[in-house]
């Protein structure tokens, strides 16, 4: 993190706070910096402050405290239209009374660009999103996916170095959304522009981003590349927000280096990796991904602790099996197994024994 606050940061938030009513802080002490060309996603539940951050960056909200810098210069007092930041809005905000080409031409016109330049750029931008034939249409005559492409092209047509996207794919159906995820990232990387992307869809965040900032309660809970975020969540909020996750409540019984043992409520003991527990006796929530739970004892180390489990439900999902277990008094413990030829389909009521590698089970804050 320290290396990110150096001089080559392109966008910087320094100790930024935001309050709307003067009583509660929507954004609490935000520090964030991203280098040129990075695709950063702000992920979080609604009300976590991610959109407010985006709006402060775009200039539509002013920071109550702190400084926002763009390319090294503070932009707190620069009005939105002088920031030169491209933006894609949640509902696209395509101007309904203008044609697609006029929409794209608008940012160039207000920059007093010549007619021939404008036409060339509009054409190039439309071709970039494969909408070259649609210049004469009105936004209302386009499908949602097409509108989305036009909104993207409009945000890019004036060649901004920074593009902000506020849940741009929220209104699309699943298949189109996946396709557009791919398209947006490839365009962003090809053009080398810096992108700040806001979403509450974790799949989108994981598949598109260079780094993801998980927001909750006005703070960044964790800022990390997607794989690190998924595999090494720093706290229980992140662990539960990203992906599916089993949590067990317990007390730290013993810590030695990067392993510890945790005693659960029913007295059974498990292995875990201490992440933010520091002392024996700390309350902790241990977190383990469903796909990292092991039923085959041979794959565990000989001294690993195991737990008894009862199968409550077996769900066939095609590529995987999803099995709900009762473990240490918890009814919603889920494991996922690959639909491989040698994989056994568990029966309801079956008693099994489960375990895991200590590094897959993270002891987090309670």
């Amino acid at each position, binding site marked *: 993190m320290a290396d990110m606050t150096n001089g080559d940061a392109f966008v910087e938030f320094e100790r930024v706070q935001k309050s709307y009513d003067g009583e509660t802080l929507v954004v609490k002490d935000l520090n964030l910096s991203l280098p040129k060309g990075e695709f950063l996603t702000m992920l979080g539940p609604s009300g976590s402050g991610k959109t407010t951050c985006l709006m402060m960056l775009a200039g539509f909200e002013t920071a109550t405290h702190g400084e926002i810098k763009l390319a090294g210069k503070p932009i707190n007092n620069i009005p939105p*239209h002088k*920031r030169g930041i*491209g*933006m894609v*809005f949640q*509902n696209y905000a395509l101007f309904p009374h203008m044609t697609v080409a006029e929409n794209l031409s*608008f940012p160039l016109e207000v920059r007093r660009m010549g007619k021939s330049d404008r036409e060339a750029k509009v054409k190039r931008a439309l071709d970039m999103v494969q909408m070259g034939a649609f210049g004469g249409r009105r936004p209302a005559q386009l499908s949602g996916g097409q509108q989305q492409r036009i909104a993207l092209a*409009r945000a890019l047509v004036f060649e901004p170095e920074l593009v902000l996207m506020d849940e741009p794919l929220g209104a699309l159906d699943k298949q189109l959304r996946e396709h557009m995820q791919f398209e947006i990232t490839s365009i962003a990387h090809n053009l080398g522009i810096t992108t700040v992307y806001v979403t509450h869809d974790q799949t989108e965040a994981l598949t598109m981003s260079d780094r993801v900032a998980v927001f909750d309660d006005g703070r960044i809970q964790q800022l990390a590349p997607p794989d690190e975020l998924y595999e090494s969540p720093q706290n229980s909020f992140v662990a539960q927000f990203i992906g599916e996750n089993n949590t067990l409540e317990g007390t730290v019984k013993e810590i030695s280096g990067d392993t510890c043992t945790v005693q659960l409520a029913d007295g059974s003991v498990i292995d875990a990796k201490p992440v933010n527990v520091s002392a024996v006796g700390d309350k902790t929530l241990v977190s383990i991904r469903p796909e990292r739970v092991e039923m085959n004892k041979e794959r565990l180390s000989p001294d690993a602790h195991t737990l008894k489990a009862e199968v409550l439900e077996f769900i066939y999902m095609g590529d995987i099996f999803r099995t709900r277990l009762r473990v240490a008094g918890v009814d919603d413990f889920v494991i996922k197994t690959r639909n491989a030829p040698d994989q056994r389909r568990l029966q309801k009521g079956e008693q099994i024994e489960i375990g895991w590698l200590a590094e897959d089970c993270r002891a987090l804050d309670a």
Partner: protein
Amino acid sequence: MTDQTAGTAPAGLSPDEARRADAAHTGPMLAADGTPLKKSLARALRRQKLRALALIAPLLIFVLVTFVVPIGDMLLRSVQNGIVADTLPETVETLSDWDHDGTALPGDDVWTAFYIDMWFAVERKEHTRLGTRLNYELTGMSSMFRKTGRQVDRFDTDVYGEQFVALDPSWGQPQSWAAMLDGPAADALPLTARTWERWKDFNAEEGDKVLEEDIPDFLFTALYHDLTHGAEVEGVSDRLSAAKAAAAEFEPVDLSAQFADADEDLGNIDVWKTLQLYSPRVTSGYFANSVDMQLTPDGIEARPENQQIYGILFKRTLFMSLVITGSCILLAYPVAWLLSNLPMRTANLLMILVLLPFWTSLLVRTSAWKVMLQQQGVINDVLVWLGLVADDARLTMINNQFGTIVAMTHILLPFMILPMYSVMSTIPPSYLRAAKSLGATNWTAFWRVYFPQSVPGIGAGSILVFILAIGYYITPEIVGGNTGTFISNRIAYHISSSLNWGLAAALGTILLAVVLVLYWAYDKIVGIDNVKLG
């Protein structure tokens, strides 16, 4: 049960067969029961339409009966002119042959017809109404009819009766008249026969028996007129032949002199020209009047300059309505913008303030403006107190156009704010943000992105305000004075004071047509689809 199952699947096609049948079928699409799809769709929709019609029927009937029909009837009065032909049927008939270009007064037949018509009109008290009607066209007609009406009963026509009875006493018996006019004599004596019928009808109306009444003078006059004007009575009856022979020797009564005695105006040729001009049952006279023209025997001519008022009034009405609409747009736009951009709670509070005038009586609001604007009023007092205006040079802000425009702008403002607000509140703020993020200044973002989307609201508000303004009556009546009144005030004057409903209807029809034309033009230019009221 078996019958039913057999009945519902007569074709018994498997899905495969059905598909093949569909593919082979090239004619119109058929519904499941074999009727053409279009027909069965129309049947299904007809029920919906009937249902919709039934739902609106009570209101539709109410509006038709209490509003559309009376207004249509009222507008028809702008061309209706049956009163002349109804009151003076014989006169209108005979007058149609009169040459109005000459200098001679109408002949004997017109006077006789007028005498008979007037007698009935006076008995039915219709002559004063006719006088009032014709007085719109020629001053003096009203008093002429009234004066003549008083005299018509006292004409010296009784000499005809005396002479007929002296010839043959049976002429004094109603039975003999009835018997005569029941037979072929009716054809020989057209005027007498028609007059006898009117006399019979009149008695029936009065509840009298015609056979018990004395033969009135005008019947003898009609008979005399027929007999002396070439009635073919040979072979009809001896009595009539004798009467015809004798009538030529009768002492005549000069009806034109009798009438001239009653009122000398009847000797004026203009009176007869006017009567002839307004004889038809349908007239363009009211419309001619309402556009500062007049109907003359030689066609429609412009009125003298000093009598032209309606053109000025129409132009003033249009001009002031436009000014009022314009000032409403200017005042309402920022308010509507604020309303649609404020948080809900504040917006609702402000909306109540906007709607407050609706809950106050129109008269009260207008009178309040009177208090504000008059020379000894609040505004003048303040200006004098501030020293901006000398006490002896107080501003005239009421009883003129200024006062009307100020008061009406205030009164019609909510009608502009509401449609504007409802349109503006559907424009998401993200459009402005998007425009700004694309590099537009506040003004460019507003003018190029927000304003075009708010035009439907302006359009709807403008139509509403303009149409309301063009027909406004109470406010200009109270604060308009002489220079600030509208055409509607003139219409009201003709409805309630001068009682010239025909002219009022013509003015109203023109006003309606102007509004419809403007509406049409607006649809062509802006498009009525672009109008949103909510």
